[in-house]
């Protein structure tokens, strides 16, 4: 069973600040997905990263897949209150879809 660790577990910052959250494992992934869950809703896919070293941008969000495909990071520039939510990473390659415990992000106006 691969162990996924997301850090930090909780993060509360002011609007306009930058932040980075991490998803780490000892296992190699064929690809990895990031989801965001807003309060009262189910998670929604943000991005899938496939290639080691890959960087993908989604507006103010930048996702990076580690060169060894064991870790990933999500960087948010100039955070907005709308970025508030639970950010979950999920490795791909197996039949079952298992998530890390998530980073709960709160952006304060």
């Amino acid at each position, binding site marked *: 069973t691969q162990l996924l660790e997301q850090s930090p577990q909780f993060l509360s910052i002011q609007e306009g600040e930058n932040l980075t959250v991490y998803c780490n494992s000892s296992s190699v992934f064929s690809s990895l997905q990031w*989801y965001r869950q807003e309060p*009262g809703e*189910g998670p929604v896919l943000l991005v899938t990263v496939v290639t080691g070293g890959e960087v993908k941008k989604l507006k103010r969000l930048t996702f990076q897949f580690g060169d060894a495909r064991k870790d990933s990071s999500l960087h948010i520039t100039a955070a907005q209150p709308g970025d508030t939510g639970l950010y979950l990473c999920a490795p791909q390659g197996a039949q*079952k879809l298992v998530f890390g415990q*998530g980073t709960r992000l709160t952006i304060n106006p």
Partner: protein
Amino acid sequence: DAGITQSPRYKITETGRQVTLMCHQTWSHSYMFWYRQDLGHGLRLIYYSAAADITDKGEVPDGYVVSRSKTENFPLTLESATRSQTSVYFCASRTWGSGTEAFFGQGTRLTVV
């Protein structure tokens, strides 16, 4: 309506009762999943299914039963509900293949009293 729907949205039941949570998807996705999410935590996989009549255990299967006689439906049954099963339950589906997007239902908030 197209999509994935869960019912009921809210349920209160008593300890020891049997409860079934329903999940229905209209895309004919191969894979379906059940998760529980406890207050302030991430998602833990209970059971998943790769196709009709094929199911397998996830991380926390004890106390739960699933079936999948039709591709579009994946009910989750708590045979004898316990207070520790109070949680929000999410169903998800995705098509076959690594890296495909999973789509989630709105969740069922279950309280066991």
